[in-house]
């Protein structure tokens, strides 16, 4: 099992131990406090993830074949989601990020309690990360 899958299993179990939807949300808010804030100078238009109802900024980098991500949002629950994604993907090989199958949201029912627009927004965030990783796997090979 690769590292992303291991981490995902660990995080999923942590969430499932939290209890009901309120406790899972409360845990996301706690995790939000652990997400390093994005410096104001990085909250630029080109880092905004389009399609999100909240403001979400992503700073994505490829460094020595590894995926690096910083992110921020103006809502704590989405910051918590960003924290989870960062835990899963930051410092991982680009190819692993590009090919990762995310199950944490469906297995913990976190996604089900978000309204449709928000689900779409989180989907955009994940897609953007994986698209970036895939593009940079290719350019590394070139």
């Amino acid at each position: 099992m690769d590292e992303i899958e291991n981490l995902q299993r660990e995080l999923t179990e942590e969430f499932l131990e939290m209890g009901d939807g309120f406790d899972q949300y409360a845990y996301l808010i706690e995790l939000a406090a652990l997400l390093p804030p994005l410096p104001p100078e990085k909250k630029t238009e080109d880092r905004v993830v389009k399609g999100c109802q909240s403001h979400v900024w992503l700073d994505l980098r490829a460094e020595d074949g590894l995926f690096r991500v910083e992110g921020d949002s103006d809502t704590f629950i989405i910051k918590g989601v960003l924290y989870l994604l960062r835990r899963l993907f930051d410092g991982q090989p680009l190819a692993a990020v590009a090919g990762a199958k995310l199950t944490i949201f469906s297995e913990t029912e976190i996604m089900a309690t978000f309204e449709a627009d928000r689900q779409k927004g989180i989907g955009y965030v994940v897609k953007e990360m994986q698209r970036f990783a895939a593009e940079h796997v290719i350019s590394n090979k070139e």
Partner: protein
Amino acid sequence: MRDVQTIREDFPILSRRVHGRPLIYLDNAATTQMPVQVLQAVEEQYRLYQANIHRGVHWLSEQSTARVEAVRRQTAEWIGAKESAEIVFTSGATESVNLVARAFSDGVLSAGDTVVTTEMEHHSNLVPWQEACRRTGAKLRVVPLTPRGELDMEAAARLLSERPKLLAVTAVSNVLGTVNQVEPLIRAAHEAGAAVLIDAAQLLRHSRVDVRALDCDFLCFSGHKMLAPTGVGVLYGKREWLERLPPVVFGGGMVDEVTTERASWDALPFKFEAGTRNIAGIVGLGAAIGYLNELGDGLYAREAELLEQTEAILRERTRLDVLGAPSTRAGAVSFNIRGLPAYDGAKLLDQLGVAVRSGHHCAQPLLRRFGLESALRVSPAFYNTEEELCMLGAALDRIAALPGIGNG
């Protein structure tokens, strides 16, 4: 008024459970629930009387027409209008304001004229006037708010002295719950030669309305904020204004004679009712008015008590910042939890079964006046209970105690 537990039996949705917990529905400023009497009236219309109105001569059509026109008369009586021809059925307050704004653009406003509205308005009573002014070259003037969240009446007087063509003002703020003293504004506007449109969308569960006593020129409201279905609303207009204004939507149902070159308009109110109305919605509106009438004036005291209790619950919690402190509030009160974005607060409350609204509430200028982009809003209705409000308080305490929430 009947006791609240008996009333709640008329609202089956209130017994629902959400996320495994009893639903505590406190988003009534957005939309109210419908009692079974309204649901049955709507269902019966579709089941037994479905037919288009005003055109057919068969029995079903005549029955449907009679039912709609009965609601028109009932609505006129309910708000104190002189005649039912002054009641135009629309899809809601938004369409009503847009109708007047568009008609003013086409028939009244010229470059250099002035329209006055306020910083307190819902976007539906602000943006149509911005557009009307943009189209005609008229100027939009905006009455500012005081720090307490009331209209600055001195500023209003100054703006009215510019002799605007119209004043558009809300009776009750959908965010702050501020009840505006519209009577002196209407008098001052008329003295300045201005017509007055009152947005009564948030008013009608909280106070009797008498449009002739108010002497407003237009008044609008939405059915779904007073127990009726969505997609139906009312524009009241004084006959002389409705006769003067041009129609803004054209087609079947609003014409008299039509050639390939031109058309003439039908009499009031049909001139403003192109196409087929929301017939079942109108029937539901009538049932809702009947239900509110049956509750009696005790309804207004009940709504006021619940809001007072809500505000007290919010104010006694030091982590909460309540927006505004108007001398009279009705229907809604907004606040923030220090250190927690409003969206997160609403999601957490939702997980505890509590339905409130978060965001800018279609009143971005008002929120920004308080230095905010979003807020939480609680809006109880007569079918809520004191116990539910206590549970709101307990839910807020649980949220405020969560680790991970800063001090703002």
